[in-house]
Structures are given as structure tokens and as C-alpha cells.
């Protein structure tokens, strides 16, 4: 009587099938959008342990106070050292003053701060910041609760196409491919 192992075979097939289906469901396998995942930061962490929670959280600084071009350019802009020095010429920092010292060091040497990039969409995606800012989107919706995070070290969101698309559909924004891909 060989019945039992027929059942086993059928069961195995079913299992494989559903697995394949689930595979399809999971965040896609497309290598092209996986850059976001690749963007880890180096072993050395950030050159300066910049506490976003201190500035955006406690001090209630507006994001665009530093990321100055977010509302008028496709790129949000990384604050120039001069912007930091605008305050830190006078503010030596309460705790962790050594970090502020590093900053001043960069300023005196006339060097730029080599920040490690955290948020990056694939090269075949163009993300116009200004469109999203002018649409009234909160920075946090893509960048997570920055005001609570200290040194930003990992991507807060998947930054995958499906993730973008969900929002676009919810917001009734365009779903045209060439809105982002060209």
C-alpha cells in the first residue's frame, strides 16, 4: 500500500507552490532597486557623531534650516560647514564637545566633512525633493522620525519602488513610469 507517500508528494508540491507565491509577494528581487540596501555606512561610522535628535528634536530646528535646497531643488542639499559654524562659532555644545571640536577642525582646515551617505535611491530613479516638499509631505514620511534618532546610521525605509508607489496611489499622485525613470 503506497498511499501515504503519494500524499507526502502532493503535500510537498503544494508547499513548493505556495512558497513560490509568497516569494512573489515579498519585496521584489529586482537587483536594480537594491542599492538602497547596499548603502551601508563604513566601519568608521560618520566623521562627526551628529545628533539629529538634539537639533531637530530638542532644539526644534526646521529640517530646511540645514537642508536648504529641499524645497527648490531635486536635491535636499547637505549643509555646508559654514552653516554649522553659524551657530557653533558660539555654541561649544553641552555634552560631547569633542564632536563640535571636530567640526571646528574641519572649518579651520577649510575642509569639507566627508559624510557617509545613508539615503540613496537607485541611479535610474530621479527623486525631485521640491515636488514632495511643495506637496506638503513631511520629511519624516520618507526619512523616518529623524528628530528622535541620534547619529543616522541606517536606512529607515525600504526605498523600494513598491514603497514609493503605495504612497503615490494613496496620495493620488502620478503613476506614470517617466515621472521617476528617465
Amino acid at each position, binding site marked *: 500500500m503506497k498511499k501515504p507517500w503519494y500524499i507526502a508528494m502532493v503535500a510537498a508540491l503544494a508547499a513548493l507552490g505556495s512558497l513560490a507565491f509568497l516569494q512573489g509577494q515579498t519585496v521584489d528581487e529586482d537587483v536594480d532597486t537594491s542599492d538602497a540596501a547596499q548603502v551601508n555606512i563604513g566601519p568608521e561610522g560618520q566623521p562627526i557623531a551628529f545628533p539629529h535628535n538634539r537639533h531637530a528634536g530638542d532644539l526644534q530646528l526646521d529640517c530646511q534650516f540645514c537642508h536648504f535646497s529641499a524645497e527648490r*531643488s531635486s536635491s535636499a*542639499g*547637505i549643509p555646508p*560647514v559654514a552653516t554649522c559654524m553659524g551657530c557653533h562659532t558660539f555654541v561649544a555644545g553641552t555634552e560631547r564637545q569633542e564632536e563640535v571640536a571636530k567640526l571646528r577642525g574641519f572649518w579651520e582646515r*577649510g575642509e569639507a566633512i566627508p*559624510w557617509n551617505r545613508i539615503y540613496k535611491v537607485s541611479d535610474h530613479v530621479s527623486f525631485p525633493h521640491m*515636488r514632495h516638499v511643495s506637496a506638503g509631505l513631511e520629511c519624516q514620511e520618507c526619512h523616518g522620525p529623524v528628530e528622535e534618532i541620534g547619529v543616522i546610521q541606517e536606512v529607515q525605509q525600504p526605498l523600494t519602488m513598491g514603497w514609493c508607489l503605495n504612497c503615490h496611489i494613496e496620495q493620488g499622485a502620478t503613476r506614470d*513610469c517617466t515621472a521617476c*525613470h*528617465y
Partner: protein
Amino acid sequence: MSEGIKRRDFLKVLGVSGAGAGLVGCSTDQVEKLIPYVTPPEEITPGVATWYSTVCGECPAACGVWVRTREGRAVKVEGNPHHPVSGGALCARGHASLQGLYNPDRLEGPVRRGEDGEFQPIAWDEAEALLSQHVQDAGSDFVFVTRKEGPALAGLIESVVESVGGSRVEYEALSEAPLREATRMAFGQDAVPTFRFEEADLIFSFGADFLETWLSPVEHARGFARSTGIDEAHEKARFVFLSPRLSLTGQNADEWVPLTAGSEGVVALAIAHALVQRGADGGPYSDLIEAYDAQAAANEAGIPAETIEELADAFQAASAPLAVGPGVAGQGANATATNLAVLILNAVAGSVGSTLHVTRSDLAAPATPYRELADVISRMAEGQVPAMVLHNVNPAYSLPPESGFRQALGQVGFSVAITPHLDETAALCDLVLPDAHTLESWGDSNPRPELWALRQPVMQPVPHFDSRSAGDVLVRLAGRLGEDLGAETFHDYLRNRWSDLHAELGSPGGSFDAFWREALRVGVVEVDAAPAQATAMQTPDRALTFDAPELEGDGMALVVYPSSRFGDGRGANKPWLQELPDPVTKLAWHSWVEIHPETAEELGVRRGDMVRVASPHGELEVPVYTYPGIRADTVAIAMGEGHENYGRYANGNGVNPMVLLPATVEEPSGTLAHLSVRVNLEPTGRRYSMASIEGSDQQYDRPIAPAVQLEELREGNIEEAGGYPTRQELQAIGGFVPITTEAEPQDFPLEGARYGDYEDSGSTPRWAMAIDLDKCTGCSACVTACQSENNVAFVGKDQLAMGRALQWIRLERYYEQIDSSQPGPVDIRFLPMLCQHCGNAPCEPVCPVYAAYHTPDGLNAQVYNRCVGTRYCANNCPYKVRVFNWYRFSEVPEPLNWQYNPDVTVRTEGIMEKCSFCVQRIRKSENQATLEGRTIGSNEVVPACQQSCPAEAIVFGNIRDPESRVYQVSNNDRTYRVLDVLINTQPAINYLRKVTFHPVESIHV
């Protein structure tokens, strides 16, 4: 310019960051660095382009350009609309200047020849010390050879040379000395005339390639297109080309008089003679003119005498005729005489002062003729030149070997080359100083008395190369020589000169700083034109022989013409220019010899056969290109290829025709005679795989590039579009016709079209284009402009020969009528073929993954990252405008990739691509419009091809808007759409038919 200095400071930082950001589009595993500025420059917003105005340095025409920079990197060059020379347009060579800037073969630092004869790196200060010391020692024997430079640099060189009492020679391989000398003799003025093609209604060109290299091509092309292009009043200037070979300029002619090489002068005089017979005033040249009657000239030129009479009639009937020529290719032993003859013709016809103005002033930088260099060479050979500097000149390549320059250079005590990259000449020098690229350095230009323009660095010097601008080097040299220029840098020196100029001009715009800043911003300073100079003819001060010169040797006359892509060869190491198919032969990456099909038959050779071309002075092997546009007794080879030591993209491509020529000095102008030998061709029996994009040059009566005769057009006899019999038949017998063929581009989406997201269509724009084939000159500037804007990779000779060219625009060229045996109409049709963005696109339904689909605003989009590479879309595209990335062509050596446009995806291997209507520019304008709370304007978006077109043949916009220019231009009897009636693709590109003077077969469109 205080902020200018500041900009350069931060750019220094950016230069470093660029290395990281340099690899646009290549995802990298290591951590990506974000490099912010130390001090924010006020005019820069990250992600937003900054434009700087400067002057193009690719040819002496000195077009004013705007350079687009992103985060401190130059990514695109465009014509400066404020500049009267460029008028906002630019040629292919201008676009390719970026590949000179980012050329991987640029010198990484100064090098000196060591004892072992090899170049050794050397420190800048040491090098400059060496230079000054040798110049000092040489004293009055010091020679400085340079090319035609702007006033400031020329003045600086002058003063440096004077400080030691040396001599300065200016050398341009493409010399207009004969024209200049003729003008001096005819009008008593040391000047090169200005030619106003725009105002002419009849143009005779005695071989001058004024659309390609002659004097100021972009300016001429604009004027030419405006006059010969048909206007609302159905008026159109006529263009007759008199030359043994049809250059690209000649291919635009309405009539071709194929006269024997060198007989241009006598023909011009004969026409003048005929005019005098018809009552015109010969002036002081009457007696001379008398000597040349039509019959004699006709015999010499190998054309019927009636032709000359007819030409004379036409010239007399014309209200604003213009004759130009002969241009470099026609410079024989009688070059000055020929130029003089053409000037006489103009004078007799009364064109002087109307279409021809004797005002162009090159006094600021006189291009001294070859004769002076020849003298220097003989002195060099005798070892009388202890030290010489060669700045941006390459005589070792561009002179015939018989000039003996190479050997002579060996006899020079200490030879210094100041050049951005090694070339044949620099390779022979003792010391090579890497010059900054023109886009990295200061300078100025004065193409006309009333026109001044500043050249400014558009970015910090490319960090890969430790270069210093010749200006700065020379200012310091002057200092070391004890010459006080009152300037530390060339920038200061330039400012000083300009403050003097500012004073001369009576201080326009108030303070000098304001004037200076405005000059930099606008890019051009126009001052009151010099008072009209006397243009009365003067009696010639020396006797000239006008007859066609005896060509040395036997066989066929050899025409050596300047390449429209490389000029005298200086552009040869730029892959874009190598890859750009020659507008005439459609060949790229190599040389060819043009011979008439009949001649080829006699020789028993086919297109692509290698032949040995032998002149009394040298020989070379080159493949045959059979060309109906050349006389059967003439062969032609282009200059510019055949480099041995000019960089990876130039070396070993093709041949240098100068080896066939003697170093004959033409008198009295002293230029190098290009037309001076006959050559024999013998087959080698070997084949050569030619890199051509040309399939067939015939239309086979298909609705591709129709034309209409002027009379027909005036009478309105132009058949309606859609009158294609087969389709009507189909409909008549109830055959299946998918979608109505009466639709216009603006009727979009077509009912039944199912691609794209069309909820709110009707409100969306329909982007469309109109191309006027009566204006298009086939110059191919759009091809390179597109390549530069859209990160289109170059593929190289072998791939191109396999039929894998990647350019998004294919400039098709069809022969309708072309006969070199007798004078008559010539009809050659140019058709810029790019993606037609069909409303009913065959490529869209066949793509299995929706990589090709239609956008709501009417674009036929290609989503690169979705493409899997089945190539079905390309197979199904009737226009064959889809190109495929067979390899990773986009991986180019540093720092060429710095040029990549950050707004456009860089394509990797296995992906289909094609014209996108510059969608990135559309989206940018949309973003801008949204920020400003308005809708996008109908004429707001200007794609790269339209922007660059010197003939103003291309118009782009939203054709749904009746106010838009594209709608208005398309609203024309001549409008048709390629192949539409045949396969109902509903293209978004309207073409306007070419208009001819002779009857044409009508093709149903």
C-alpha cells in the same frame, strides 16, 4: 570678480568630491561620500544647473557659448543666444569641446625629455625656470609659434616675445591668408570680409565650405538657412555651387557646376565679364576682366559656355547676389588670384556693402601665413633657433613632411610645447607644459570690431591633470624676464586690458567692475560698429595669373579638404567626433578617398576596396568611397585623420593626406597650396570593412523625404497628405484599417489606443516636433548635441561597422539628382531621423514587459530599468530609431565619465534606448512650473537638438496648443509625416518638405 574667485575656491572642494560622484550611474559597493561645500557659493544650488558664459575655443570663429555645470562639473556646452556669432546654436565640434576638457589622454603634468630620450615628470616651478632661462639665453633668436589666439593672449605673447626681441609666428593649418591678401589688394584693407548670407537672394560658392569649416560656419549656417529656407511669402534664395567636388555645403546647393579643379578664378572673371557686357561697371579691373570671355573660361573649366552666360544672367537678375570662395580645399597656386576674382565678381555685381562687408577685423590676432613658418623652419634647420615655444599648434602633423618641420625641430636647441595633451609636435619637444583647456582658462575674443567676448573658466581645472593655463605661465615668464605687466595672473592681465578697453569705449555701464561682471554674465559686449570703411575697388598692386595652375604629376587631381568634424585634425581625439558619421560619406572612425563611380569602374574597384594613392611626393593606402558628387577626373581625401601620436581615439585611424602634398608656398599670400598635385590610384586587392551607417542612398519612391517644386508650391499644387493609393483601395474594398489615418499629432490619444494612463488626457500636453527639411543642412550638430545631453555612449569603429551605432539621431541622406558630368540641378535630401513618438506606435504592443509604453503627455517612453532586451521593439520599429546596448558601452575611462548628465540614467548592457524627446528637460520644466504654481508653457521645453541646430530647422512644443510655435510651423502645406500613410503610425514629428527650383517626382505622402 570677487565672487568669481570665491567660486573657484569652493570648486576646488567640489573637484575632489567629483571623483566620488564621477561614476554617474554605476552603483558602487564602497560607501558613497557626501561632500558639502565649506562655504556655500550663492549662485549654486545642489541639483540645479549653473550656467557660465564663455567662448568656444575649437576653431577661430570664436562662438559665444554657455556651459551648463552641475555641482561644479561642466556637463553640456550650448550656444549663447546673446552672442551674434553663435546666435544660440553650436556645431558638433563645439559640443565635443567637453571631451577635450575631460580627455583621458591629457597630460598629467609637465614632462621633460631626459638623457634616455624618454619624457620624465618635472615640477612646474622647475619647468618654468627652465623655460625662462632658455628664452633668456635665446634672446632675439627666440621663436614663439602659436595658433590664432584671442586679443589678450596674443598681446601677452607679443609682449613676452618683444621683451627678449624674439619673433612670433602664428600658424593656422586652415588659413584664410589668400582671402585676406586679395581683400588687401582689392580694397586696400588688411581684413577678412564679413559675408551676410542672410541678406543674399542668390549665392555662388566657388568651393567654399562655409557650412563646415570656412571662417564662421555656425553664423553662416544660420544666415544661409534663413535666406535659402522658404518663408511665408514663398520666397527662397538660390544657391549655386561651383567646384569639382560637392562638400556638405555643396550638397545643399540647388545647382552644381562641376568645373575642373583650380578653374574657379577664370569662371568668376568670365561671369564678371558677362556682367560687364550687360552693362555693369568693371571699375579698375575692366581691362583684366576683358581678357576672360565665357568660351575660353568654359573650355578651361570643362563646362559649356552657356552655363556661364546663364549664371551671369541670374547674378545680374538677383537683387542681392553673393559670391564666396574658394575656401581651403580650392587653395591652389593661384589662391590669391581666385579669391581676388571672386571679390571682383562681387564688386562688379555691386554686392560689396550689401551682402559683403569689408569689416571683419583680425588685426588683433593676425594669422600670419605659412610662409613665415616656412622661413622659421629653414632657420631651425640651420640651427639658428636656440629656443622655441609651440603653443597649441601641431605642424608636425598638419604640414606636409616635405616642409621638413620634424627634422628642423630636432635642430632646435630647446623646444617647448604648451598644449593640453601630447600631439605629434609636442612628442618631439624637449619640454612639454600641460596647458589648461579653454574651458578652464581665461581669455577673450574679438571676432569683429563691434564684438568683444570674455572667456572664463567654467570649472576648477580637472583634478586628474596638473595643468596651468598658457596665460598664467606666460605672465610668470614675463615676470622672470623682467617685463612688468602689472599683473600677477593672466586674469589680472586680462582685467587690465579690459579696463583699458572699457575706458576706450567711454565707460559703458558705469564702473568697470559692473561692466566686467555684466560682460561675464551676458558673455558678449557689443560696441558701436566701426565707421563704414571705404569699399571702392583699387587697382591691383601686382600682377596675378588667374588661370588654373598646372598640377604636378599625372593622373587625377587631388582635392585635400578640411574635415567638417576635425577641421585641421585637432578634434581627432574626441570619440564623439570620431563616432559622428561624416555628413557627406556617412563614414566614421577612418579615412577614405572619394572617387566617382565611373572612375572606380575603370580602376576595377568597388566601395571598400583598398587602393594605393601615389603622388610625386608620397603615397598612402586608403579605402575607396564611390561618390557621385565628385568629377570623374578628381579624387578627394579629408584632412584630420591619420594621427600617430595624438591619443587613444585618434591614433591609427585613417590616413593624413598631407603626406601627398608638396610644401608649396602660394604667392603673394604665402599660404600653403592645398591643390597642387595629381595622383595615381592602384588597387591593392584588399578589402576594408568600412564603418558606415548608410544602408541605401535611394528612397525607392517611399513616403520618406518628398520635395515640392517652388512653382508648384506657389500655385498650391501640392498633393494632400494621406493620398496613398493602396490604402484608399484597401478602404474601398472594405479592407481592415486599424485607426483613422486622418488624425493629426494633436489628436491624442487616438481612440482605440490603449497604452498609457489617460484618465486626464485632453488636459495633458502632447509633445511634438516639426523639422523643416528645407532648412536642414545635414550638418549633424544635433547628433552630437543629443549624444552630449543624453549620455549616449560611443561604440568604436568595429562596433559601428557591425551596424551598432548608438546615436539617437540618424541623419539620413538620399540622392535624388546628382550628376558630375555637366552643370545642372542637384537634389540631395537630408532627413534627421529620430524616434517619431508615434501615437500608434508599433514598438509598444510588442514589448512583453511594458518597457516601451506611452505616457499621458504623448511621449513614447522607454523605461531602461524595466527593459529585458528582447529587441522586439527595435524589430518592429519601421523607422529603425531604437538602438541597443550590446555591451557596457557607457563604461569610459576617467575622467570622460565626468561629462555624464546627472539628470539622465546611464544605460548599462542589454538595454534598448532611443530618443526620449529630452524627457528630463520636460520634467525639469514641469517641476519648475509646479514650484511657481503655473502650468508648463507650450514653448518652454527646448530639446538638445533644437537648441543646437544652427539652421533653426527644429521646433518642439505642445502641439495641442494652437498658440505654440510647433503648431504654427506645422500648419503648412509642406507638412507630412514619414511613412505614416503606409503604416499608420501617427508620428508626433511633422516634417516640412524640401523646396526645389527644378521639377521633382511627387512621392505620395
